[in-house]
């Protein structure tokens, strides 16, 4: 009957209407036009300033156990009158959301996450705005120089200001270490091996360390760490390969492989991400956690999450090695329509005041050198003293326009070497072969 047909089509239209009438996207907010009555008001009203809205996207801080950034942003809104649409999720999701937008030249975001691994890639793609146009003279003078350099494009302009100084520390379980008969953390990597061996033999721990060497993006972070602490290099300024020719790089990789072969490192680490490895460390399974986040200390002393509360200390990286820093910055996309307001946001959220507030709450490492001698903060975080001593020594990841490819090929080859299916030299040679088209292109 026709009625059935009409009935169905009406339902169809209703369904479409239902979905169309759903809450609209909140990306842009239109200023409210004054009604006729208001316009006709004889009383002169002060014009309400049009609220500028910026859209900000960056990941949740990994140590943000309680709400920290959102309240700070709300204060920014109150103080400047700029409205912020905040999009926060995990690091992977943020990265995947930003790519389509940047790739299509969109202007949906005004402040984006800018990870240190992306810098040269994005510089090459021209996706971000040089901040030199917006920042006052000498703005970066008090900042940790390394962090400034990391986010400078090859043409010398600054493109990002760090909001998450994610420098890693050398953690160890002091209680278990002394149980095994050692009072001081290892001064050299060989000492680390002997201490681990003794502790394992004495049954104090299962392993010297629980590594996180799953085949994933962060495996190449690890590769950089072991390379650097053995004095090796990955590539030079022109992008010429050093990793397959530098004997120190080879030594670093071989050391890591031997940790597995000698039973010092948990072989299950080949399948673990850092969160899982951290859990093991916090359950007393191992002695050393060579590159833990700054917030790990607080977590280690939290009895509801850790079985080793009070046992963990921070030491210097053995053999005078340099810690890895994996900072994240704020950047302004090239096509943003609200660059002035975006800069105000960046300036506010990375200011000295913001650093102090957030540091007090979640132990965020400041980007301003002076804050490391601030009495209040150093009382809260005594382990910062070690970091301050190494300020000039932290190193970041390689700055390559082909960093994505480097990770893609590297993670497979390095994982194969760690699993014992090829030698370290073979892995490095295979990497060089796979990346040959990029040789000496920075």
């Amino acid at each position: 009957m026709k009625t059935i047909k009409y009935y169905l089509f009406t339902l169809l239209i209703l369904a479409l209407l239902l979905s169309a009438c759903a809450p609209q996207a909140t990306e842009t907010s239109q200023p409210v036009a004054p009604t006729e009555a208001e316009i006709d008001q004889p009383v002169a009203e002060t014009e309400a300033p049009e609220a500028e809205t910026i859209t900000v996207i960056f990941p949740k801080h990994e140590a943000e156990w309680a709400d920290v950034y959102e309240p700070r942003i709300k204060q920014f809104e109150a103080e400047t009158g700029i409205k912020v649409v905040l999009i926060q999720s995990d690091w992977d999701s943020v990265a995947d959301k930003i790519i389509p937008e940047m790739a299509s030249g969109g202007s949906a975001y005004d402040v984006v996450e800018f990870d240190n691994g992306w810098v040269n890639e994005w510089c090459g793609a021209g996706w971000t705005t040089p901040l030199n146009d917006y920042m006052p003279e000498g703005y970066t003078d008090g900042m940790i120089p390394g962090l400034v350099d990391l986010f400078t494009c090859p043409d010398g302009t600054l493109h990002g200001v760090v909001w998450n100084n994610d420098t890693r520390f050398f953690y160890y379980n002091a209680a278990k270490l002394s149980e095994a008969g050692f009072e001081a953390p290892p001064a050299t990597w060989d000492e680390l091996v002997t201490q681990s061996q003794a502790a394992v033999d004495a049954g104090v721990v299962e392993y010297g360390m629980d590594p996180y060497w799953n085949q994933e993006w962060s495996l190449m972070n690890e590769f950089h760490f072991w390379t650097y602490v053995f004095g090796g290099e990955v590539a030079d300024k022109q992008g010429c390969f050093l990793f397959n020719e530098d004997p120190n790089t080879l030594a670093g990789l071989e050391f890591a492989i031997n940790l597995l072969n000698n039973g010092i490192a948990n072989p299950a680490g080949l399948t673990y991400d850092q969160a899982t490895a951290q859990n093991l460390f916090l359950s007393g399974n191992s002695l050393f956690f060579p590159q833990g986040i700054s917030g790990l200390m607080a977590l280690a002393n939290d009895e509801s999450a850790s079985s080793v509360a009070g046992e963990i200390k921070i030491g210097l990286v053995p053999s005078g090695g340099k810690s890895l820093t994996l900072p994240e910055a704020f950047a302004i996309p090239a096509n943003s329509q609200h660059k002035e307001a975006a800069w105000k946001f960046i300036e506010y959220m990375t200011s000295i005041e913001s650093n102090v507030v957030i540091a007090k709450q979640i132990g965020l490492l400041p980007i301003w050198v002076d804050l490391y001698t601030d009495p209040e903060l150093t009382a809260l975080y005594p382990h910062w003293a070690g970091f301050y001593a190494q300020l000039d020594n932290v190193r970041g990841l390689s700055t390559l326009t082909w960093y994505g490819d480097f990770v893609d090929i590297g993670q497979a080859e390095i994982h194969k070497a760690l699993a014992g299916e090829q030698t370290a030299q073979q892995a490095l040679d295979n990497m060089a072969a796979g990346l040959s088209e990029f040789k000496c292109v920075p």
Partner: protein
Amino acid sequence: MNSSGVLRLSLLERTKKLFVSENWFGFSLVMPALIAVFIIVFLPFVDSLWLSFQRHDLTRPQNDAFIGLGNYINLLGDDRYLGSLRASAVFSLVSVVFEVVLGVGIALVLNRKFIGQGFVRGLMILPWAMPAVVNAAMWKWIYNADYGALNALMTQLGILDEYQVWLANPVAAMALLILANVWKETPFTTILVLAALQGIPDTLYEAARVDGASAWHQFLYITFPLILPVVMVTMLLQTIWGFHHPFELAYIITGGGPYSSTELIPLRIYAQTFRSLRFGYGAAVAYLTSLLLLIPAIFYIRTAYKKIVEY
């Protein structure tokens, strides 16, 4: 047979009359769906297909160029891609075999009368009802080398002496990935086969039993041919999905490891597009794989589709 003969004739006349309007009627019914799919899939498809004929690495825009089949030719020599193709083929085909066998088997069991049959039938959808992320995370936790339920179960049952690092062994990792996939996907086949089983009249089985046919014969000659169309559809769909869908599964459980032995095609596309920012190459990976999948698809249409229509 006069009456039916007369009936058939008038049917034929009617059909002839309707022949012209048949076409239009058919078109009008299928058009809306076609338009929707066309616009949403076809236009972006053309766009990205065009992209696959170019070198378009976003971080090196100075190298952008039209290179025709260049990407495809490079792919055929790309060991990483070929490895992932092999991995995906193994993953998909082995999964499908298990999904069909288990799916049909479970459907046969659920087709019987037993106490709580309604509840179990509803429960059966559970694995498929779970979001892929949750499924992947759940199995990753089960396979965990130090805390996983799999290790605990095996050692407590005495099958193993010590905990194994399953995901560090290429064969075990692939097998466990397939297990996670089969567990999740089997309900799809089960429910569709179950629905098809509902359409088989009891009388057929009764007649067969009277003739003395065994249960196996009943299955082979009655059940199997009647559920075959549905089974073939699900097989084809599951094969295609096995190639294109299991991104979360592989990414979360193994990340493609150990050393790329479980690196499925979706992981390659993701790595090339989203991480290496090589949009042209990434698109080529996708479409070369689709091209290769066209072969079983065409085979299916040629053989099974005709069979169903004639049926």
